[in-house]
Each structure stands twice: as structure tokens, then as C-alpha cells.
């Protein structure tokens, strides 16, 4: 994700300059005709709505006859945000969820990619199977696991029964609800990490491994001193990519637990959804959205500076 920025910047602009064929009104026109639509869409559908959110976050909005009435609210929404227990619960749960789920996905995905990279037959077969969860709608994943984790007939409790354990209400008890959602997310997205890691492993230079083998390196030494260091760029990119998506989690939570029981699976997206659409608090919801957008931008800055630091040391 982050690397694609570099790939877009016009590389070596001087190559054609000596010919001076391309500059002119026609060229300028085509430049705008090709870039204009994307720019227009991003401005109209992302910049304007965010500006609108920012404005609304200082207002109280009530809808009547399809028309909004806006009154000035000052900073009251932002003040309320700090004492809102749902918001802090949402923030905390989202952090726990994102880091736990992504950590699990990274480790499992890496192990699976390593295993597949070491086999000679059946790579395409395993890859095809492992990709499947990535392509399935999040809401269907939710439906699948709502059935799997059902107290009465779910496969998980059936399996526990076979080994003599008591059935457990996975989604209905506050101790295991968030854990269940984390496990579902690991099931859903480990394949994505697997795919990126496998692509990374397949492009590693083979001569290093052959040299290590000549020197009698063990499999562990090979993994620890060669594979992992070489994979660090891929690992960072995958981690950042997944973390961003994990922060947006909504579909599975909506279907599996709806934030409950209590606030045990309250995540940011779901809190936002409820403020806007269940409680119709547009002003307060906007303040919350602005706070979330600010946090996201902060995260991006931290990630980019971390990347710069690792880039500088290696």
C-alpha cells in the first residue's frame, strides 16, 4: 500500500525532454481529461463529506419533512466524547481486536506460506482453497460463524461434546464474545496474509539459501537468520495493510454480536453506526467520526515514520 505511492510518482521525467514533442494545449487538455474524473470523485465524495462531517460536529441536527435544521452546538459534542463510555469501550475493543487478530493472522499466515513454499506439488491447490475466505462477503462470514458458534447445534459445541467438554455460549457471554469475533477474523483474513507472504517468499533470492545449505545451516537458522530478515519489508507492509482493515471491522460484529453482550464487542464502526442511524444523533456522530478520522491519520503518520526508520537502518 505504502509502496505504491512511490511507484506512481513520475519516474525519470527527463527522458523525453530533449524532443519537446509533448508540451502544448492538447497535452494539457488530455492531462486534465484523464486525471479530472478521479480528482472530481475524490473531492466530491470524500473531501466534501469529511468537510461536512467536520462542520456538523459543531451542530445539533434534527430532520423534519426531509429537511435538516441545524443549530450551533459549539464544542459540546467533543466534550461529551471524552466522558462517553461507549466510545472509550469501542476504542479499547477495536485496539484489542485489531492487534490480537492481526498478530494471529501474521503468525499463522507466515507459517502456512512457509509450508506451501516448501512443497513441490499441490501449491496451486492449497492456494486456491486458502484464498476462498478472502472473497466471501463479511456478512456471509458472520452468518457462517453464527451457525458454527450456535449454542444448540453449532459445530464447535458439537466438537466439544465429542471430547467430553460442556457446550459454551460463545457469542452470548461477555468473556468469550470478543475472543470469538477475533477468532472469526483470524479465520477470515489469515489467507490474505498467507497470500502476501507466499508472494514474498517466492521472490526471495535462492542463491542465499543454497549458500546457507552449503555452510550447514539448520532449518531454524535458515528461517531466523535469512528468511525473516529478508521478509521484513513484506511483513511490515502486510501488517500495516491488515491493521488498517481491522480498524474498519463492522460486518462480522454487526451480525455476530451487535456490540454485545453489554459493551464487550463494541467496536468503533459499530458505535458510529448506532449514533448516526439508530439514535439519529448526527452532530455527535460527526464529532465521533472526526475523532476516528484524526486517529486514523495519526496512525498513518506513525506508520510512515516507522517505515522511514526501518528503511534507514536496513
Amino acid at each position: 500500500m505504502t509502496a505504491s505511492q512511490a511507484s506512481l510518482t513520475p519516474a525519470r521525467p527527463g527522458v523525453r525532454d530533449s524532443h519537446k514533442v509533448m508540451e502544448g494545449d492538447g497535452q494539457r487538455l488530455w492531462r486534465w481529461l484523464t486525471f479530472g474524473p478521479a480528482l472530481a470523485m475524490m473531492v466530491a465524495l470524500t473531501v466534501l463529506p469529511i468537510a461536512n462531517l467536520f462542520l456538523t460536529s459543531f451542530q445539533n441536527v434534527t430532520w423534519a419533512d426531509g429537511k435538516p435544521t441545524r443549530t450551533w452546538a459549539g464544542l459540546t459534542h467533543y466534550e461529551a466524547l471524552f466522558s462517553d463510555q461507549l466510545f472509550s469501550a469501542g476504542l479499547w475493543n477495536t485496539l484489542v481486536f485489531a492487534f490480537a487478530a492481526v498478530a494471529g493472522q501474521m503468525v499463522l499466515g507466515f507459517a502456512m506460506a512457509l509450508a506451501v513454499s516448501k512443497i513441490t506439488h499441490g501449491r496451486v491447490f492449497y492456494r486456491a482453497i486458502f484464498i476462498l475466505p478472502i472473497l466471501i462477503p463479511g456478512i456471509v462470514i458472520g452468518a457462517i460463524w453464527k451457525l458454527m458458534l450456535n449454542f444448540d447445534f453449532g459445530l464447535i459445541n458439537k466438537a466439544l461434546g465429542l471430547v467430553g467438554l460442556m457446550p459454551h455460549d460463545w457469542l452470548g457471554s461477555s468473556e468469550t464474545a470478543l475472543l470469538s469475533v477475533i477468532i472469526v477474523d483470524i479465520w477470515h483474513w489469515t489467507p490474505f496474509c498467507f497470500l502476501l507472504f507466499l508472494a514474498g517468499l517466492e521472490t526471495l533470492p535462492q542463491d542465499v539459501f543454497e549458500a546457507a545449505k552449503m555452510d550447514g545451516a539448520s532449518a531454524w537458522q535458515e528461517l531466523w537468520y535469512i528468511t525473516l530478515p529478508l521478509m521484513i519489508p513484506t511483513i511490515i507492509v502486510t501488517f500495516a495493510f491488515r491493521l488498517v482493515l481491522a480498524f474498519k471491522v463492522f460486518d462480522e460484529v454487526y451480525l455476530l454480536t451487535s456490540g454485545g453482550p453489554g459493551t464487550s464487542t463494541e467496536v468503533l464502526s459499530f458505535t458510529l453506526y448506532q449514533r448516526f442511524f439508530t439514535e439519529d444523533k448526527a452532530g455527535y456522530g460527526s464529532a465521533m467520526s472526526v475523532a476516528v478520522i484524526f486517529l486514523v491519520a495519526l496512525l498513518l503518520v506513525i506508520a510512515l515514520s516507522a517505515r522511514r526508520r526501518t528503511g534507514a537502518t536496513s
Partner: protein
Amino acid sequence: MNGRTRSPVPLHIVLAICAAIVIAPIVWTVAAGFRTQISLLMGEVLFTPVWSNFSEVLWSKTSDFLLNYRNSIIVGVLSTILCVVVATLCAFSLNRLRWPSWVAHIFLAWTMIFHMIPPVALASAWFSMARTVGLENTFTGLILAHATLNLPMAIWLMAVFVREVPKELEEAAIMDGASTPRVLWHVILPLITPGVAATSILTFIFSWNEFAVALTLTMKQTATVPVAIAKFAQDFEIQYTQMAASAALAMLPALIVLLVAQRYIVKGLTQGAVK
């Protein structure tokens, strides 16, 4: 890498277990779609498959699932066309038409920030915008929203593919007097067709799967498949077997794409992140 030094049999066993963990929930759910509610509750291992859930979901008067399916196809196809056309033009423009580098930098940084924001945060703003201009509960609103949501990824992907086209080809065409649109249409486009295919397939799948925005921007008549499936879970008495049947139907595009275009998906999913 070192398949000869160690027997890969234990690896195959581990991978087979992983594959089973991935496949089992899906197969079990599809199977639940062929059960009666009683058979599911009883937990019979062997059961006589019935069609009633599927026929209920598809043809019953009280079910809108076929309409939802049609809506998802309309929104998916049109938003994909819009998104990929705009993204291809944009990637070509930023890569090859000598924009000052700060333009590309700022624009791409913004697409990145936008990509990180939870869609729910924007859904309310889109909702009130749609309401203001009269696009609420229309396909147009949802198509625009989905195209925008997928635009960052599509631009990054197309940028990778456009960059892979050797500059020399383009320069030769320009020397022969080809104009910018001709270069794009006759030189670049034929070479990036696989990239366009990969991007289109992924964009369609992401639109098909999108739930949060579809939930807020649609009503009964325009609801898409994920919205319809979520409805099952909201019911007081959940029709589990029908939920399973509609979940199975909702997975069809993913299965088809996996069978006929796995190569493109792998290309799309990995290029966007790694390059």
C-alpha cells in the same frame, strides 16, 4: 525451497489440516442450507437433502432475495465499470503525463488516508448528501459510493500495471505522431488488459461484499445481498436453514471467480500491497 532435504509429508499433513479448517465451516453451512430446521437442531450427521430452503429463499412471495441478487449485480457491474475506467485514466495520467510530483504525492496520500477511514464514518455524510440531492434509495447513490470506496485500491493496482509497460513503446508511437488518446488506447491498453481484468474482478467482488454503506444507502427495493442476509440475523426467530441457503447463494460469485480466474485474483491481491 529445500524439498529434497526433508520429506514434505508432515508439511502436507499440516497443510491438509489447515485446508480442512478453512473448508469445513463453508461446507457445513452449505449443507445446513439443504437441511430441515429440525434436522439442524437435532444435529443428525446423515440427513436427506431438501430443496425447500432454497426454493423458499428464491421463489417465496415474502422473500426479496432474487431482487436483492439482481440489485447486487447491477450495483457491482456499474460501480466496477465506473471505478476501473476512472482509475485506469488516473493511473495513466499520473504516471505518463508529467504531472508535477507534488500533485501525485498529495493525491495518493489522500487516497491512502481515505482508504483507512471506516466507511461507516462517511456513510452518514453520504446519506445526508444523497438525501439533499434526491439520490437516497437509488442505485446511483450506492454505485457512486462503491466506486469511490474501491477507487484507491483500483488506482494503486492500475498504477503498477501501467508502470510495467515499457516507455520505449510509447515513445515510438509518439514519434510516429500518435496523440495521447491514441497512445493510451492502442499502445498501453492492449498491454494492460490482464491488469484491467484483475482489477475489475476484485472491484466487483468488493462491491458485492460491501455491507455497511449498502445498509445505510438502500431501502427494501434497492437492498443488496449482504443487507438481505443481515436481515435474517435480526429476526426474532432466526430461520437458520434459510440463512444458510442464502449465504450459500451469496458465495456463488466468489466460487465462480475462484474457479475461472484464480490467477487474476492472486495478481490483484498481491500486486496492490507488495509493489
